[in-house]
């Protein structure tokens, strides 16, 4: 065996001993004194890299993440067994919508409108909201609805805190997070769509100069759902009009510009509303800490922390 090959084997062995078994650099050098001179500078790099890689999550983040993970775990089971909109085909949602319209006549839906998470009719309230979301077709409309529903969730947390119901505080805080994450996602989508409209050539160039990195797939594994970057396809060029009525064209342009202005204005209003909520709603929850029973304090604190992060994320996305 050549000396360089032997050295490579020894280096690999030392790497494994240091990285996998936690042995020290000195232990390795002691075993191979004849290579110590060559090994040491390389193993010094290993030690330095290992040290620099040892970043620790902040304790506060660790707690927040664990809370969110455990909540997601708890949420999963009911969703698997009872989650209606998570698995039902679209026609089923339509049927539900029709039922809700019919039930509305009997007053059930109306009665459910003001229910709280511990009420019998509360699931109907949630279903009504989902149907409402389903039949809201624009990104902006959905974002606005999420903001409205987020306010409702805060009201519910306040009530559940007053009643000392930890479990419902936790669940409602997760629903609040879901609405605010919805705003963040929708705002990002709306913004990206706006950008693409304004400067498709920039996006195209970005795709061309995209990361050389590739996603890994494993044999026998279902692909984790990831959205691919959209491929820019040039729309078919419309045939030139036989005769253009300039006045009509101008009117259409003005109308189009008004629509854009109106939409921009609504996004601004939504941003302002969320900005105020991001300050007021967590503060409102925080004030409750002085009055609630000690048994719900910890849960309420976690709910506040989650709400602050979620509002911040929504606002960041809207900005």
């Amino acid at each position, binding site marked *: 065996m050549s000396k360089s090959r032997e050295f*490579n084997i020894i*280096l*690999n062995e030392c*790497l*494994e001993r240091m*990285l*996998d*078994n936690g042995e020290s650099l000195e232990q390795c050098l002691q075993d191979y004194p004849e290579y110590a001179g060559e090994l040491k*500078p*390389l193993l010094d*790099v*290993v030690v*330095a*890299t*290992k*040290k*620099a*890689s*040892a*970043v*620790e*999550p*902040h304790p506060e*983040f*660790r707690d927040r*993440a*664990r809370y*969110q*993970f*455990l909540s*997601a*775990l*708890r949420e*999963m*089971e009911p969703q*698997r067994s009872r989650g209606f909109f998570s698995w039902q085909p679209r026609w089923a949602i339509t049927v539900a919508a029709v039922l809700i319209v019919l039930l509305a006549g009997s007053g059930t839906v109306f009665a459910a409108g003001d229910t709280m998470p511990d009420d019998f009719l509360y699931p109907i309230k949630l279903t009504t909201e989902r149907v409402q979301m389903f039949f809201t077709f624009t990104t902006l409309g959905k974002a606005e609805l999420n903001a409205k529903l987020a306010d409702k969730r805060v009201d519910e947390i306040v009530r559940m805190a007053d009643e000392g119901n930890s479990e419902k505080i936790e669940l409602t805080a997760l629903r609040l997070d879901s609405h605010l994450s919805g705003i963040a996602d929708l705002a990002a989508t709306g913004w990206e769509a706006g950008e693409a409209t304004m400067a498709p050539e920039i996006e195209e160039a*970005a795709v061309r*100069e*995209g*990361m*050389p*990195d*590739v*996603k*890994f*797939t*494993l*044999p*026998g*594994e*279902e692909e*984790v*759902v*990831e959205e691919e*970057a959209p491929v820019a396809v040039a729309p078919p060029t419309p045939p030139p009009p036989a005769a253009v009525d300039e006045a009509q064209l101008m009117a259409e342009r003005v109308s189009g510009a008004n629509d854009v202005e109106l939409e921009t204005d609504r996004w601004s209003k939504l941003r302002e509303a969320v900005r105020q909520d991001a300050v007021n709603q967590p503060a409102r929850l925080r004030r409750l800490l002085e009055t609630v029973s000690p048994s719900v304090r910890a849960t309420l604190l976690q709910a506040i922390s989650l709400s602050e992060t979620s509002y911040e*994320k929504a606002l960041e996305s809207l900005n």
Partner: protein
Amino acid sequence: MHGVTPHCWLNLVLANGGCQVQEEESLVRQAIQGDQMAFSRLYEEYFDKIYRYIAVRVGDRIEAEDMTQQVFLKAVKSISSFKWKGVPFSAWLFRIAHNQVVDYLRKRKKQPATLFDESLVTSNSNPQLMAERNLDVEQLKIATKRLTEAQREVISLRFAGGLSVAQVAKIMGRSQGAVKALQHSAIVALRKILSVGNDEQVQRI
């Protein structure tokens, strides 16, 4: 607990790793069946590793925190689709993390330049250790920019993710020999880059 084979915990490191794999497989099976306790133990086992891996790849604490949470939320949603066919759970989980990182970097539309952002250095009560670490951060931040993508991935998975060569090989879809070679070349490259950097520093002084 040495020599205890019928029941060994996930965090018990055994020389042959056999018990750990067996225990992990059992936990994963339970987690797929909806055992929250089992899933929680897997979470505790991998949380820090996933965070470190992402943090080292993206170099931004806030993003790393957000993406780490997303990885585990995706894992919760997708665990029912996981099939134990010789593919370890770690490979599956790190693949989710890797894909998150790829998406993030693609969106940022620039190279993953900052492997070791100073904002990632956590507060430490030992000032000497902090000084040493900051020095490393500064040097390595520059040095790792010049590694190839594959070398950077191996370094991130091995050093930050704390994974074995075999696990890295599964995640990257390469042979163990290829991973060892990449690791070796990355260390040699880092050594060269760092020594040149030091020489330049000395010359400037």
